[in-house]
């Protein structure tokens, strides 16, 4: 083939984006999170931060699935819950030390259910934290994406999935603890779960896990796969004609986001001390989507930022202005969606551009 159109006038030097800047910010944030926070925050507040970071892990997955892949999942709580229950079951069995967990006793269960038995093994339980969300997400993804269920249909289906799982969990009180969920934990891998040192260690663990997952997600987004994901988001049908199966791309991404949520759920349990169906429902799932939107859904950093900011805001307002929280949450959300659909990150970028422009003018 010869060049019959224009001759190239400029050789293609693959531009190096300002990567070192991103790396610098990441390191700075990591230092603050790992060194400064444990020093300046009192234990109770550090525990709260650990909780927000758990949410941030879920948000990261939502950012990936929704922001990058266009899959608005309103049922991320499902995977959070699956991870959380896997961890909770292990902790309960560990605490019970061979006896029946407390809730089974008052629920009239006489023998440890077969489903529970393997969760006494910590390795198995930890594996299930990843495997169960993965399997559910792959199964659901394969079913729905293959059939090209997408957009609003997908969103509503995931929402219904969350609602259904909550009902199912509540209905099986002897197996799941019902609405109460699993709570009253004592021992976390040999440590007193309520002890300050354990909680600090947990905080650091959550922060490190978040950092690692963030880097992984970042790499994913920058990769060809990430480009492909954007392409699927913007033109799923067209992608088929490039020789890719969009269902596979979406299922993989959805599964990754589900695994992230599962890991977050597992970390949440020792941090907060409870996992209950209410955490899996539509509302918490939606709240996290909102957080991602507030932070900026098109940037992974936005998702993480949004989760932390909204988590903090919720705590702050429920302490200071409990009656106003719903108004504030609603209003904040309306404002962000109308005025700043790209969220905090988008606003920041716009401001930076303006400052640059003025500086150069």
């Amino acid at each position, binding site marked *: 083939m010869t060049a*019959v*159109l224009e001759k190239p006038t400029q050789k293609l030097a*693959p531009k190096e984006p300002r990567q070192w800047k991103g790396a610098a910010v990441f390191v700075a944030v990591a230092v603050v999170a790992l060194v400064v926070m444990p020093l300046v925050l009192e234990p109770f507040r550090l525990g709260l931060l650990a909780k927000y970071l758990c949410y941030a892990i879920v948000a990261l997955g939502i950012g990936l699935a929704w922001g990058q892949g266009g899959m608005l999942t309103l049922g991320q709580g499902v995977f959070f819950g699956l991870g959380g229950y896997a961890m909770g079951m292990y902790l309960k069995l560990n605490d019970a030390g061979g006896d029946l967990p407390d809730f089974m006793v008052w629920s009239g269960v006489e023998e440890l259910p077969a489903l529970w038995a393997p969760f006494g093994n910590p390795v198995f339980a930890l594996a299930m934290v990843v495997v169960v969300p993965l399997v559910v997400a792959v199964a659901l993804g394969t079913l729905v994406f293959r059939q090209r269920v997408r957009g609003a249909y997908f969103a509503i289906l995931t929402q219904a999935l969350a609602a259904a799982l909550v009902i199912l969990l509540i209905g099986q009180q002897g197996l799941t603890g019902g609405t109460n969920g699993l709570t009253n934990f004592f021992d976390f891998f040999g440590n007193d779960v309520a002890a300050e040192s354990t909680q600090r260690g947990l905080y650091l663990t959550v922060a490190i896990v978040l950092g690692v997952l963030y880097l992984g997600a970042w790499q994913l987004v920058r*990769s*060809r796969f990430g*480009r492909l994901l954007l392409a699927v988001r913007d033109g799923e049908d067209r992608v088929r004609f490039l020789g*890719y199966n969009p269902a596979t791309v979406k299922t993989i991404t959805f599964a990754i986001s589900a695994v992230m949520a599962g890991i977050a759920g597992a970390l949440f349990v020792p941090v907060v001390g409870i996992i209950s169906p209410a955490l899996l429902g539509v509302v918490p799932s939606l709240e996290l989507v909102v957080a991602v939107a507030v932070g900026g859904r098109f940037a992974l950093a936005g998702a993480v930022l949004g989760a932390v900011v909204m988590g903090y805001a919720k705590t702050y307002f429920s302490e200071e202005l409990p009656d106003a929280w719903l108004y504030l949450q609603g209003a904040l959300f309306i404002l962000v969606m109308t005025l700043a659909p790209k969220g905090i990150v988008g606003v920041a970028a716009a401001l930076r551009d303006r400052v640059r422009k003025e500086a150069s003018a």
Partner: protein
Amino acid sequence: MTALLEVRDLSVVFDGFRAIDGVDFTVQNGELRFLIGPNGAGKTTLIDIITGLTKPTTGSVVFDGRSLAGKREHERVRLGIGRTFQTSVVFEELTVLENLDLAASFRRPLWSLLARRKGVIAAVEQALETTGLTDLASRKAGVLSHGQRQWLEIGMLIAQGPRLLLLDEPVAGMSSDERSRTGELLTSIAKDHTVIVIEHDMEFLRRYASQVTVLHEGKVLIEGSVDEVRADPRVQEVYLGRAREEAAHDAVS
């Protein structure tokens, strides 16, 4: 030459309307085939069926000796069938380069896509040069004009390295100069690919086509050289609109 694409007794019915009605259609390896016919004749639908976008009601499509029945869109692309669309659809959020790169990468194993793109693959560089989009390589495809998009789509098609290219009105909306260059591009592509082009521009046809198939009301009306086809009274009747077409031709030449 052997047949690369064989369409046998193909029909498709939409809500009782026969858009394709018993089409037999064969394209040999290495051919540059033009497909013309009135608006609504079923040209796009035929391509839709070949590429898996529409399911035929009856009939078969055999590509390179293999039946395409039951194969999904992306599987057909993997067999080497590439197409462009009548109204171009490119990924607006991706740069021109990234659009081309994705088109060129589908044969890689999925896991290898997890690595970042380093540099520019040869096929992409080639496609950029061929389409003259090199200067726009790092621009988002969303800012391209209609014509530039069409070129980008052709570029993506080239970068896919398909064996059979199906182009649906590639020069629609282009200025005459742009048409010429696209025509030359097609001719050069056709040297080592099999190409089917749908086009309405008779001037373009006269310059670049040899074999032409005319569809009409879902059936093949005639197949032959450009001159044979143009001379056919039925083609003039249903497609060309004899009097003015001649007049127009005379006026220009």
